[in-house]
């Protein structure tokens, strides 16, 4: 478990704000169940996300019709609940990507060393 340092807390807060976008992105091409999503996030360097926090976000995405669940047989166990992106979810992801890029560019401009030296 991660120690709750101020830096970790700040990073977690940042990620929580974009976790819905990240979840849509990691299941865009291939549906996944909850834990598998955390693996994919971790593989892309987002292992700082508290795994349990994805479920409420998934719940909201499902309620808003951006993802849809379906059952898929698992190896030896009962069927698992998988999530896939809906057409509405694809549109939302595309929009959020643009918003993120704009926000990131603006923040980069603000935080750029060259800008702060002036």
């Amino acid at each position, binding site marked *: 478990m991660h120690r709750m340092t101020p830096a970790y807390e700040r990073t977690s807060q940042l990620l929580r704000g974009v976790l819905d976008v990240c979840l849509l992105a990691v299941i865009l091409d291939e549906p996944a169940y909850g834990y598998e999503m955390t693996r994919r996030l971790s593989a892309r360097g987002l292992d700082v996300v508290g795994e349990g*926090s994805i479920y*409420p976000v998934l719940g909201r995405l499902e309620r808003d019709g951006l993802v849809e669940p379906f059952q898929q047989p698992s190896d030896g166990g009962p069927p698992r609940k998988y999530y896939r992106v809906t057409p509405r979810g694809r549109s939302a992801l595309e929009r959020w990507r643009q918003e993120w890029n704009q926000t990131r560019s603006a923040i980069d401009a603000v935080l750029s060393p060259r800008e702060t030296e002036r």
Partner: protein
Amino acid sequence: MKEVLAACRRTWRRLDVRRTDARAMAAELEADLAAAESDGTSAGAYVGNDPHGFALEWASARGLIRTRVALVSTVLAGVLGVIPGAVCALFVAYGMSSEAFAETFGSPEQLGDTSVMTYTPPSWLLLGLYTLGAVFAYVGALAVVSAWLSWRLDQARSRTLHYLLLGMPFGTAAAIFIAIVFAWTRDFSTDISVVGADAVVATAVFVSCIAALRLAAVRRERIALVLAGGGSG
């Protein structure tokens, strides 16, 4: 893992999440926790150190938390809170006419050939005690309803308490007024049957007041939830 799942199930039960939804969430979580544990992540680390908060947030995000009326249990909680204060006041009022009380505080009165100690409590004192009992009942009802709804993780708890806080004084006043009128029609008799009937009448008014306020609070909460686009009725 079992402890985490049990904690989540308990929370969903208290939230009155539908059994089918709770079972589905528990099955999903159990499968993921098993996978996480096989990768070396404990169930506690996976959901965080607050499984109750996790379960609450998840159910809330999915819109599974219903705003229940829970009229009977809320009214029962209110009545339970009323009892200590009301019973204390009634015991004092009734005890003031007892022989033991008359022996201590009464004055001798000649009845035929014998002198007996009698004590007739003044009306203002009886009225004061009834009022005091109503105040205790009011505070007690608020406290027990608050504790009960808090334990049930009730969505309309704050609104219910707010309504009770503002509305119960009127209900209490109505209960006192009707109790006084009832007692007056019986010449403020301290006979147990009269006092008992008086208590029943006052309690009935109080119960109706709590029920009406709870219904109004839940209705308002549901409207607020619909307007906010969250939760389910």
